């Protein structure tokens, strides 16, 4: 079995995450994927924003950059363009990446820059106490939606696909081993890749919406997830309360740092 310790800054333990939080499952899955690829620690630059999941960068022994709310992908873009040989991985949440950081998320996908985004989707703002996020399902309760959320929610993966990402997958913490594969593929993929991970926040979401503790929420996730294959045979109505999991996009598109290098060569060539 993998010795996770070699990737962890153990002096920073215990983790800040609540009992029953899914974030630790994603952390381990990510480490397994990185280990499988065989990346050395100094090749990785891991960037995060603000939120519960973004605190992950404090616990891993890579080059880490814990930045400001919503801006992780913009920082990561700077890192990647200045040092394209680095593996740049962004750890972010639904609020961080698609509310305050939504713009950066869309434009990074459009550029198709070679960054892998691991997006922890728990449908809520955990750290600040349970406010509504862009993925809080309509009708759900949040501290800022005491009468139920009146807004439609985002399809985060669909957004990345539409904007031009090379690779998009959606997994859940219930199926952690499959998640390893998605993350591995995402990191290997040249281009903008997103793995949206459905993960429970019992503290700020589960309790308020009477789903229960972490275990109950993971069971609930299991019951509500269907594979892409299965989903393709289901009606929109049937899919209403479902989470479609699997590899949603895997395509070849020109990548941004490559394009940029070509540009440099062309401009230099025409100057000489």
């Amino acid at each position: 079995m993998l010795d996770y310790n070699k990737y962890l800054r153990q002096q920073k333990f215990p983790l800040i995450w609540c009992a029953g939080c899914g974030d630790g499952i994603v952390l381990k899955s990510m480490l397994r994927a990185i280990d499988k690829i065989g990346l050395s620690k100094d090749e990785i630059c891991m960037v995060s924003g603000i939120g519960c999941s973004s605190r992950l960068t404090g616990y891993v022994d890579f080059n880490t950059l814990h930045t400001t709310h919503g801006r992780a992908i913009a920082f990561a873009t700077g890192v990647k363009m200045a040092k394209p040989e680095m593996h740049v991985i962004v750890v972010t949440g639904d609020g961080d990446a698609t509310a305050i950081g939504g713009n950066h998320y869309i434009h990074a996908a459009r550029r198709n820059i070679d960054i892998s985004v691991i997006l922890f989707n728990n449908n809520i703002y955990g750290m600040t106490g349970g406010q509504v996020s862009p993925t809080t399902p309509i009708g759900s309760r949040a501290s800022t939606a005491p009468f139920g959320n009146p807004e439609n929610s985002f399809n985060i993966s669909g957004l990345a696909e539409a904007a031009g990402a090379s690779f998009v997958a959606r997994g859940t913490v219930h199926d952690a081993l499959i998640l390893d594969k998605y993350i591995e593929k995402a990191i290997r993929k040249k281009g903008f890749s997103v793995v949206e991970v459905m993960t429970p926040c019992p503290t700020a979401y589960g309790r308020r919406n009477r789903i229960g503790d972490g275990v109950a929420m993971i069971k609930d996730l299991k019951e509500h997830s269907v594979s892409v294959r299965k989903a393709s045979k289901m009606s929109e109505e049937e899919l209403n309360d479902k989470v479609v999991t699997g590899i949603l996009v895997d395509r070849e598109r020109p990548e941004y740092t490559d394009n940029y290098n070509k540009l440099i060569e062309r401009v230099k060539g025409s100057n000489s």
Partner: protein
Amino acid sequence: MSELTLIIGGNAGQGLESSGAGFCKALNRGGLHVFSVQDNRSRIRGGHNFYLIKTSTEPIVSWTEPVHLLIALTAETVDIHLGKIVPGGAVVYDPSLEIDEDRIKDREAIPIPLPLYDIAGEAGGSKMMANTAALGAVAGLTNFPIKHLLSVIEDNFRKKGDKVININKKVAESAHDHAASKFGDSFKFNMEQQNGAQRMVMNGNEAISLGALVAGCNFVSAYPMTPGSSIFEWLNKHADEYGIVSKQAEDEIAAVCMSVGAAHVGARALVPTSGGGFSLMVEALGLAGMLEEPIVIVLAQRPGPSTSLATRTEQADLLYAINASQGEFPRIVIAPGTIEECYECGGRALNLAEKYQTPVILMTDQFLATSNRTLDKNNIDLGAIKIDRGALLTDDDLDKIDGEYKRYKFTENGISPRALPGHQNAIFKTTSDEHNELGEIVEAADNRIRMNTKRMKKLETALADMNPPKTHGLEDADITFVCWGSTLAPLTEAMNRLNNETSNTANIIQFIDLFPMPVEKVMPVLKNRKRLITVEGNYTAQLGSLLQMTTGVKIEEHILKFDGRPFSPEYILEHLKKLEKRGRNG
């Protein structure tokens, strides 16, 4: 008079915040005064958090450092706070924490091992109820009537149903009996029931929200950010009763823009945030200045820059709030120092914004925002706040308009009569570009000069509404402290102690109205002082700089603090001594 300070300390995630706030309520129901400090780490779980409550039979000026009763839910709590325990004080802890009793006895304090977890378990509760047990024990040790704690439990858990209420009550009662019978005699500090005036418990954010509500706030847009969020949540919770549109936005840029939009069509709009969020709002702040839209931003400060100490306190955004701008436009900045002033300012800010048709920034900090204090009920006068909509044209006025309505009409005082969109006689344009009286883009130099002058003129006009600073204590004193915001409470206590030792030692000048600075009203208050010292929660003495900039008075001495923790009277007195030592040596 009897007074007592208790700390309940433990890990994040142990529910200290709600237990602490709940106990403040219980004490208030028992006729006691309270003053609390909330100290959280920026973590969801783990890490030391504590809630301090000072309670007294008499009104409380400020929290103070010495602790009489320490409730330790973790061993770390004992390590951190034992040094502040007074002789005769006590430390309550679960025996499973294996605290060395001798350490407590060395400080002449009483070790009180109480099986809080077992008590909770035996009453049918969970581990999480250890804090309910702890509060029950506090009541038992101090002779405080348990019924008040039970009534708060009933109120707080009402939504969760009778079963949860009953278990919690049982846990509290059983811990109470246990503590009272075994240790009640040895612990000498009491919190006995007081009868008399009806009071209430409120923190700064609640008071601002209430003030705004009374002043007709009907639109609030925000993005989650500690310590501003709870204003949004409070207004949101009451949105149905009072007809408030509340909108959580996708970021602070959107939040403030929504309020500018709402204000444009007539809403009384409020945007709560903290420094990081305010930074994102600066562009729209200028837009509000240019379009002359009344918005109120509540800037609840926390340490910066960037994420810094996210759950803590500081007063380092003052010059930023006053100066954050691209180009020049008028704004008003006010900063309450007490809960009552939070209430007043919450209403006043909305009035000032409409009166001067420009953004108002109401500044507090985490300490004031979250500190729960008792108030006499008549200190919050619901009738005192009157809605002032300034030069707003009524439908009748608009019916009578003949010819083109000029939204940005040049006037003597800079304030143009304001129509809201939706009347056939006053269909008007606005633009973020420089514009003429009709709101049409105009680049001509003479128009720019006139229009910019008109806008800036409002700063001068607003001076009429800017109050001089308040003086606390005697007019004449050897030392005059100068402060703003939350510092007032601990500073007042420090002043009282100095004056009790030697009369006429110290007084305080407290600034609430900070910008535009009413220099003519300020000078008589500031001048002829023997010795001025600013006391501020920042590194650079920003109030000192502001006063020098606006009044020319240069204050040479400062007591500063920027560790993310609130001032205490003890800290101020200690640093005063240091200043004096330095003065003598220098």
